Each structure stands twice: as C-alpha cells, then as structure tokens.
C-alpha cells in the first residue's frame, strides 16, 4: 500500500484539507473510503466524519448479555442434572442461586462481547506495517489518501500543503 499524507498542526487546517480532498475526490481519482485521518485524540467536531460513524456494538452487547445469561442457566441446570443429589422434595435446580449465576454471566457476556466487538470492529490488534506516522501522538493530525492515483498524487500533496500541512510525506509498505 502506498499513501500520501500531510501532518497538520491544528483541527482547522486539517478540516479544511479534508473538505478539499472530499470536494475534489472525483477529479483526483480518490477511491471511496481512501481518505485517511489520524489524531492523538478523538475529533468529534463537525467535518471529521464522526457523525457518520456507526457501530453495531450497542446491539451486540445485549445479545452477548442474553447469550451469557442463557449460558448461566444452562450451566446451573446442566450441572445439577449430571449428579442429582437429594434435595428433600425441593426443586433440583435452585431458583435464586441459579438467578445469581445467570446475572453474573449475563454481565460477563455483555462485557466480553463489548471488548471483542471493540477489538474486531476497530481492527485491533494489528502488528503489520500500515500507514502511520509517530508524529500523530505528538499532537499532529494526519490527513492523507491511501493508494492515490499515481498521476494525481503530486496534486494531492499540493492540496495538503496549501491547506496548511506542516509536512507532506509519502508512505510505502514495500
């Protein structure tokens, strides 16, 4: 993968660069989803695409919780039947204790699903080589284009430069 990107000192210039790239995307032959943004803190302001982010996580978590609860009941019920001990006429599967186990496993399911969903949907962990610049954690905002068209990459670089990029760099995974 190749990329060209600029490092911006503040949100305003980064936002302008983003807007410019989006506007000119067809002319610069930028593929959909190829514009890359990286920052050292969440950029929740308008113009950074935050409003377009969407995840199934709030739906998957209750699902995981349900699965956890069901597993809790299955565990409590199954294990009691495996080795049925005399209960003196009381139900073999004790209701309140099973409820407590179910409750804890419900919460465990929810928490576990959330963690797994986070890692999968954020594509973490990833240890291969991919577009990144350590300047990001210095507070710079990285705006760039992945796999730019070879003829247009120079122009993209100029755009980035003109919108206030401190540096324009190129990245190649080879």
């Amino acid at each position: 993968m190749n990329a060209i990107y600029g490092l911006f000192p503040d949100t305003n210039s980064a936002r302008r660069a983003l807007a410019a790239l989006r506007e000119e995307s067809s002319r610069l032959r930028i593929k959909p989803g190829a514009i890359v943004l990286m920052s050292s803190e969440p950029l929740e302001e308008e113009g950074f695409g935050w409003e377009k982010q969407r995840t199934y996580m709030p739906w998957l978590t209750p699902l995981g919780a349900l699965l956890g609860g069901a597993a809790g009941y299955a565990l409590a019920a199954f294990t009691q039947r495996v080795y049925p001990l005399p209960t003196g006429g009381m139900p073999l599967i004790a209701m309140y204790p099973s409820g407590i186990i179910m409750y804890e496993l419900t919460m465990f399911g929810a928490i576990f699903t959330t963690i797994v969903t986070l890692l999968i949907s954020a594509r973490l962990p990833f240890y291969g080589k991919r577009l990144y610049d350590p300047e990001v954690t210095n507070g710079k905002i990285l705006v760039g284009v992945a796999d730019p068209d070879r003829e247009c990459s120079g122009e993209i670089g100029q755009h980035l430069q003109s919108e206030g990029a401190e540096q324009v760099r190129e990245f190649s995974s080879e």
Partner: protein
Amino acid sequence: MAHRWAMVIDLDRCTGCETCMAACHAENNIATVDAKQAARGRAMHWIHVERYWEGEFPNVRARFQPVLCQQCDAAPCEPVCPTYAAYHNEDGLNAQVYNRCIGTRYCANACPYTARYFNWWNPVWDKPLQLQLNPDVSVREAGIMEKCTFCNQRIVATEIQAKAENREVQDGEVKPACVQSCPTTAMVFGDLDDPNSQVSRLARSMRATTLLSELGTNPKVIYLERESSHGND
C-alpha cells in the same frame, strides 16, 4: 430401601461417663492433639459430653448432655459448601466427603452446634499406635473438615451384610460406636422411617426435644429431656 437414620439420647440415663467419646475416638481414627493445641480449642471430639450445674451451691447437681453432629434434615452446613463435600444422602445422613473438602471451613461457621472439626495439622500417631487405627475409616489429613458420620462405615457394612443375606436391615442392627459402648443404654440408634423402630417410638415421647430447635434445622438427634427438669427432682 431408604432409611432415615436418627439417634435418641435419653438425658435421664446419661451419667456423663464419656465412654461414648472414647469409643468414638477409637472407632473413627480421630486425631489427638497435644495439650497446647487442645487449650487453643483444636481438640477433636465428634461427640463430647457437656456438663451443666443445676441449682445453687451446695445443693448443686451435675447434668450431662452428649453433643454430636445433629444430622439436621435442613442442615445449614450443606448449601454453603462450594464443592458438595457437605451434602445430604438418601438415607438422611448429613454426610461429609473428605476427598471433596478443600477446607473453606464455611460449613463449620454455618453450623449452629459447632459440631464440625477441622484438621489444623496432619494427625500424628507414635508408632506403633497407628496399628490400632480402624481400617474401615480413612485417616483425614490436614485441611479437611470432619464430623460425626453416625458411623457410616458400620451402616454400609450392615447394609452389605443384609443384602448378602437377602433381607432388610433389622432395627437395632446398626449401632454406632457411641451407642454400642454406652453402659446405660442412654443412646438409641435406628430408622425414623420405620414407625415400629425403637428410635421412632422414643422420638414420639412427650420428653422428646431437639437442640436449638428454634433455628429450624430439624435435627435427627433427639434428646429426651430429664424428668427431673419437670420438677420431679
């Protein structure tokens, strides 16, 4: 054929001779501890005789009450054990499975009678005293909870014998060591499910009572109160 093993102890007959304690120690391989440990409360007696004084000096009278695991029907020790080491079997025994015990000691806390004993150390016998250990009963090691089993080894042996002879276990056939050794026959052991057993008849006595009955543990050790405590003394 399920049973409901129970014991009746007639307090009028108990003389406090503590033969039951000695018999229990011999039968069940109960570890002895030294004086220092005993003073710290670590002596183990599955059955022990409690002494009360009645009346004002000099007109006092000693009263005795043998206390052992009450083999509760609703035993507080059972549900709290995380490994099912304390559980109830079909014969109504409040059983303790040594090999399942991991030593949480929760059952001992839950037991209102403090009838459970913990092996604080590995038991020690001077050689050749180990030769008198009962081979029918295991020797418990450190970290394990133990308590009166109603001499389960005798119950099992009797049941096996009865089965070999193709008959039912007779009333009075099973005798735990304490019952067997009691010189005044203050203790009677038997099946509470059998309405004609001696235990059942005595348990229907007007004098029948249980220890800490207000706790609802429903013990299967039934004490026959002293006549004298009704004012006949």
